[in-house]
C-alpha cells in the first residue's frame, strides 16, 4: 500500500504504483490540477503546425477585467497553476498585469512564448519570481529545421530569449519542443541546448490539431522514430518533461514517467481567448466545447456541471481497443489525434505503436473534421492600388460607376 504519489505537475513525473491514481483521476477532480489558458489568438509567428490556428486577434477576446474574474475563480477552486499560451500571450498589452494578478492570488503561472518579448529587463523580472515559470518554444535544434516550421528568424529569437533568461540567473525554465519527423534526429542536440542555458527540456507530441492537420502527414514521426523517441525518453527518465503527452508510446513496454492518462475534462482543460472552455488544448472544435466562462456560473460551473465533461469522466469501455493487451498502458491514446484524423474516439490512436492505427486510418473514408475556429494570418496579400482610368481624360474618381437610379 502507498499513501502518497509524487509528480512534477503537468508532467506527472511519477510512475503510478498499484495505488491506481489513474483510476481516481479518470473520474475527474473537483477542479483541474492545471489548465491551459490561451490569452489571445494574436501571434507574431505563423507556425505551420499551430494547434490553435492562431495569427489574428479575435475582437471578442476576454477583457482585462474578465480575465481577472477568471483568476478569482481559479483561486477559489484552488487551481495550482495555469499554463498560459496563445497565440503569443506576451503581445497582449495587459499580459504582465495579468501575470502579477494571478500570482498575487495564489495561482501560479507557466507561460509559453516564442521569446519575442523576453528582453534582458523582462528576464530579470521573471528570474525574481518563484511563481512564474517560462516555456520557450523551439522546434528545431538548428535554425534550418526550426525556421522551416516556425518561420524565418524564430530560432534566433528563441535563442536570444534563452540567453537573456540564463544571464538573468533564471534556472530551470523550460525549453519546449514539439517532436516531428525532422527534429527527432536532434534529440541529443536539444538536450545540449537546454543544458547550455540551465533549462529543462520538455518534449511534446505533435497533434493534427489546428493547422497541424495540414502538415500532419509530412511532420508526424515515422514508426521507427516513435520507437527511437520512446527509448530516448526511457533512458532520460524524469530529467525530461513530456506533459504526459506520449502515453500512447507506453504500449511499447514499460510505462513512461507520468500519469499515462488522457486528462481531457478530467484533470485539465482549455480556456480559449474568447472564454470558450474546451476539454483540452488540442481539441478546439465544437464537439469538445463545454461552455464559456462568460456563462452564468462561470468557469466553475462549466468544469463541474457541463454535460461534455461529465461524459468524459464516465468510465470508458475501451471500445475497439478493449481486446488489445496493451490497452491498460496506452488507454487508446489521444482523443484529439483520433478526432482530427477522422478515427472513431473509442478506437486506436493514429500512431498506435502496435500498428492498429494505420489499419484504422486506411478504413477512414470521410473527410476528417476541421477545426471550428481559424485565426490564421490571411494568406492572400491584400493589394491596395489605384484603378487605372477608363479613358485618359477621366479624372473624376466616380467615373465608371453607374449612378443609382431614382
Amino acid at each position: 500500500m502507498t499513501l502518497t504519489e509524487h509528480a512534477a505537475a503537468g508532467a506527472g513525473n511519477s510512475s503510478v504504483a498499484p495505488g491506481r491514481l489513474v483510476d481516481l483521476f479518470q473520474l475527474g477532480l473537483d477542479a483541474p490540477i492545471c489548465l491551459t489558458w490561451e490569452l489571445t489568438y494574436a501571434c507574431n509567428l505563423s507556425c505551420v503546425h499551430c494547434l490553435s490556428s492562431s495569427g489574428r486577434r479575435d475582437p471578442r477576446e476576454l477583457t482585462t477585467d474578465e480575465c481577472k474574474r477568471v483568476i478569482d475563480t481559479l483561486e477559489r477552486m484552488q487551481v495550482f497553476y495555469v499554463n498560459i499560451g496563445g497565440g503569443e500571450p506576451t503581445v497582449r498589452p495587459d499580459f504582465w498585469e495579468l501575470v502579477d494578478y494571478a500570482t498575487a492570488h495564489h495561482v501560479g503561472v507557466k507561460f509559453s512564448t516564442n521569446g519575442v518579448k523576453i528582453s534582458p529587463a523582462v528576464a530579470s523580472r521573471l528570474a525574481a519570481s518563484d511563481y512564474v515559470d517560462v516555456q520557450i518554444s523551439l522546434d528545431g535544434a538548428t535554425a534550418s529545421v526550426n525556421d522551416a516550421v516556425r518561420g524565418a528568424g524564430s530560432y534566433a529569437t528563441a535563442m536570444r530569449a534563452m540567453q537573456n533568461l540564463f544571464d538573468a540567473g533564471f534556472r530551470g525554465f523550460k525549453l519546449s519542443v514539439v517532436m516531428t519527423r525532422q527534429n527527432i534526429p536532434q534529440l541529443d542536440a536539444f538536450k545540449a541546448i537546454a543544458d547550455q542555458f540551465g533549462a529543462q527540456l520538455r518534449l511534446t507530441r505533435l497533434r493534427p490539431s489546428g493547422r497541424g492537420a495540414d502538415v500532419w502527414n509530412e511532420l508526424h514521426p515515422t514508426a521507427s522514430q516513435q520507437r527511437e523517441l520512446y527509448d530516448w525518453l526511457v533512458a532520460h527518465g524524469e530529467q525530461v518533461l513530456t506533459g504526459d503527452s506520449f502515453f500512447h508510446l507506453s504500449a511499447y513496454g514499460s510505462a513512461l514517467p507520468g500519469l499515462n492518462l488522457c486528462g481531457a475534462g478530467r484533470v485539465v482543460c482549455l480556456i480559449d481567448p474568447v472564454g470558450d472552455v474546451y476539454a483540452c488544448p488540442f481539441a478546439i472544435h465544437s464537439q469538445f466545447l463545454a461552455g464559456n466562462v462568460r456563462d452564468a456560473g462561470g468557469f466553475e460551473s462549466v468544469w463541474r456541471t457541463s454535460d461534455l465533461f461529465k461524459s468524459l469522466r464516465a468510465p470508458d469501455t475501451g471500445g475497439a481497443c478493449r481486446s488489445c493487451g496493451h490497452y491498460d498502458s496506452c488507454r487508446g491514446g489521444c482523443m484529439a489525434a483520433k478526432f482530427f484524423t477522422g478515427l472513431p474516439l473509442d478506437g486506436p490512436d493514429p500512431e498506435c505503436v502496435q500498428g492498429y492505427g494505420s489499419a484504422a486510418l486506411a478504413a477512414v473514408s470521410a473527410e476528417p473534421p476541421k477545426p471550428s475556429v481559424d485565426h490564421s494570418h490571411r494568406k492572400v496579400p491584400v493589394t491596395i492600388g489605384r484603378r487605372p482610368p477608363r479613358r485618359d481624360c477621366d479624372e473624376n474618381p466616380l467615373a465608371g460607376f453607374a449612378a443609382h437610379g431614382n
Partner: protein
Amino acid sequence: MRPEPFGALLYHFGTRRLSFLKNQRVLAVVRSLADHPSARAACAAAGVPEAELPVYARALAALADSSMITERTRV
C-alpha cells in the same frame, strides 16, 4: 494543499512538484503535524493503527524528501 474526494493534492511552487495524499487519514495526519510534538503523535491522534505506522512513516518521509513538509524551525 487541496482536498479531493480521494484525499488531497499538494503542490510545491518551489520544486513545481505535485504530490497526492491517497486517503483521508493521511490527510488528517499531514494537516495536524504542526499541532503535535512528533509525527508519531500526529498519527496516534488521527487514529492510525500501530501496525500501519511504518506505512505512514514512509509516506511522511517521501513528503519530507520532496520538501512538501519540512522540519519546524526550532525556537
